[in-house]
């Protein structure tokens, strides 16, 4: 069961609702519209429609400097403005709740506990850019979950918050709940749009960005569900209040899925929180052991050493350190884990899931993984380290989508911070963690293998 981790009292709740005090009363059903409205749901939409109007709504979001929570951190306000500036009769908004990384349950948890925040954010975005149709896309597989979402959308529509006459404004907004499944890449925005069009899921060259030419060729705003869930709060409390939370370049809160040897869960944290505080949320490592590495960003995340625990969790700081926000997943491992082996398995996953459209991605990632296989099994060649560095650089530099730009991070960050451990495998034929068996075999046998 995904546990919600509570941080210090002064961490604000923007995305997740305050957990009810454990006084025996069972938590209210999150899909109960009346209860949600009593708690303030759709106040933001009312304000956007009745007081602000589309232009001022976009200005508010820009002023709040809300950045995409899907990983890339692109300013939401800019995306909406780009969409509005297109000459088109039809525009769409797509909420990306696919949750590509199976180790990060953040989007799912948000949709389960606070579905109306996402629906309201979607409605505000659609109102601001003038879209009449919107999609809420989630991963298929759990029918009950999808039905709950459909029921929430249905209730909001029956109550007139969305539907043929959005809050009496005369505008129309139809929200479809769509399910997709079958590939990791479906989380990527252009792939997600392809899936909605019923096509093979391979990313598209950008520009044109989806905000210019997206779903069925129409200007489309694609936004992560957590980005949308922050929108109503901003509209109600104002841009300044939002910008005051978190770090100056990345305001607001995000959801992270933290896992350590002693516990795991999802937490809402202000951006800019040091990584140390996140590891503390799950109780750090077991007594007698030391924290060795943090995998930050999911399967294509970076492996950061324990001395970078003071790095703030925000878009720029993580990129500079060699990791990224990505799926919001953070995994803390102690000294009994082998960083090289982990990087190898992560790369294999990234190669398995590559869409096959660009050749450096399709073949390069596979070769990077094979170098990892050789290093961990003692069959490495003298040139492997240089080849790994060159190949990783070339794959990242020729990326069509962010997957291949980032998928080499486990190895590049591993080389940057854990060179000693790599040397142990390559030169001394030993694995300090005792996970791999890099036993050298005679050169002739290695060549035949």
């Amino acid at each position, binding site marked *: *069961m*995904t546990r*919600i981790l509570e941080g210090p009292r002064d961490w604000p709740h923007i995305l997740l609702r305050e957990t009810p005090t454990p006084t025996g009363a069972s938590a209210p059903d*999150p899909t109960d519209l009346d209860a949600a409205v009593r708690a303030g749901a759709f106040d933001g939409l009312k304000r956007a429609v009745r007081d602000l109007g589309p232009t001022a709504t976009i200005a508010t979001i820009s002023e709040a400097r809300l950045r995409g929570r899907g990983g890339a951190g692109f300013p939401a306000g800019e995306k909406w403005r780009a969409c509005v500036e297109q000459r088109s009769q039809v525009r769409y908004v797509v909420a990306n709740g696919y*949750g590509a990384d*199976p*180790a*990060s*349950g953040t989007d*799912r*948890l948000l949709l*389960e*506990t606070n579905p109306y925040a996402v629906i309201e954010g979607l409605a505000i975005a659609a109102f601001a850019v003038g879209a009449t149709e919107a999609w809420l896309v989630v*991963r*298929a*597989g*759990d029918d*009950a*979950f999808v039905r*709950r979402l459909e029921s929430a959308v249905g209730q909001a529509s029956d109550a007139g918050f969305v539907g043929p006459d959005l809050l009496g404004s005369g505008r129309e907004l139809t929200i479809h709940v769509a399910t*997709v*499944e*079958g*590939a*990791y890449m479906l989380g990527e925005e252009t792939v997600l749009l392809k*899936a909605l*069009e*019923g*096509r*093979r*899921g*391979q990313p598209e060259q950008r520009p044109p960005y989806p905000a210019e030419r997206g779903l*069925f060729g129409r200007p489309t705003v694609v936004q992560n569900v957590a980005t949308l869930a922050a929108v109503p709060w901003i509209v109600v409390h104002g841009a300044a209040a939002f910008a005051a939370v978190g770090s100056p370049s990345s305001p607001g809160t995000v959801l992270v*899925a933290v*896992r*350590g*040897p002693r516990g*795991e869960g999802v937490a809402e944290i202000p951006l800019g929180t040091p990584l140390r505080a996140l590891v503390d949320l799950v109780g750090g490592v077991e007594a007698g052991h030391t924290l060795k590495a943090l*995998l930050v960003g999911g*399967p294509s995340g970076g492996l950061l050493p324990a001395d970078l625990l003071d790095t703030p969790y925000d878009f720029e700081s993580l990129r500079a350190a060699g990791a990224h926000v990505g799926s919001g*997943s953070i*995994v803390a*491992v*102690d000294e*009994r*884990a*082998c960083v090289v*082996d*982990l990087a190898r*398995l*992560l790369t*294999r*996953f990234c190669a*398995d*899931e590559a*869409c*096959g*459209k660009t050749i450096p991605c*399709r073949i390069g990632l596979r070769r990077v993984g094979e170098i990892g296989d050789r290093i961990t099994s003692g069959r490495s060649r003298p040139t492997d380290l240089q080849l790994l560095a060159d190949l990783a650089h070339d794959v990242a530099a020729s990326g069509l989508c962010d997957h291949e730009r980032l998928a080499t991070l486990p190895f590049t960050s591993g080389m940057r911070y854990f060179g000693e451990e790599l040397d142990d495998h390559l030169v001394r034929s030993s694995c300090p963690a005792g*996970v791999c068996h890099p036993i050298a075999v005679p050169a002739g046998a290695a060549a035949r293998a």
Partner: protein
Amino acid sequence: MKNILPGLGIARGMALTLNRFFQPKATIRYPEAPVNEASRFRGRLQLLYDEYGTLKCETCFQCAQACPIECIDMGGVDTKNRYHIHWGPPETYGERREESALRRSGRTVPDAAYIHFDAIDLGPVDAILEENEYDPKRMLPILEAVQATYGYLPVAALKRISHTTGAWYAMIYGTATYYGHLSFEPPAIRAAADAGAPVTQSGAAATGGPTPTGGPTPTFRASERSYLGALDAALGAGR
């Protein structure tokens, strides 16, 4: 201006054309140095083999898709040797090409031993297509419904979908092979293949899985299971 002097536009155009005569030729070498090709050269496309003797072509169709005059046509059995495909609109040259490719591969057409050619009752496919208004934009729901009916995607069904929706056969094939939950193998074969896949672990269900409101554990694909397994191992599961 244009209206005042009739014919000025034509004169301007001709002047531009004339101007070109005095400019250096943009074409390099040709026709001064004609290409010296072999007498039997037909501009034939050739697929190359790598050092292990496997075809380098991954049947990705990028070249056929990119070719401006659609002169590249491909047919044959795909890299996993399970299904034959071609590029091009349905019911055209490509369709016959594919059959001839199959013949050249030594099999008869249709081949009873080749399970994908088993004759099936296409009634349910037609019903599904009708329901989806023969709309190629609804390809995923169509394919999912076909798989739900037959347990897998039979070739005959894909052909029917191609012929009735007008979607290119190769496009449908591309879509069908891309999505991990769609399959060309009947469930029994699929289960056997899946059993050999890396096995799951304890923690996988914990993060992606049961939810505060108590949903069932989603099923993960094999690659996702090995990724989650790698994390579990690093975290010390089974230590």
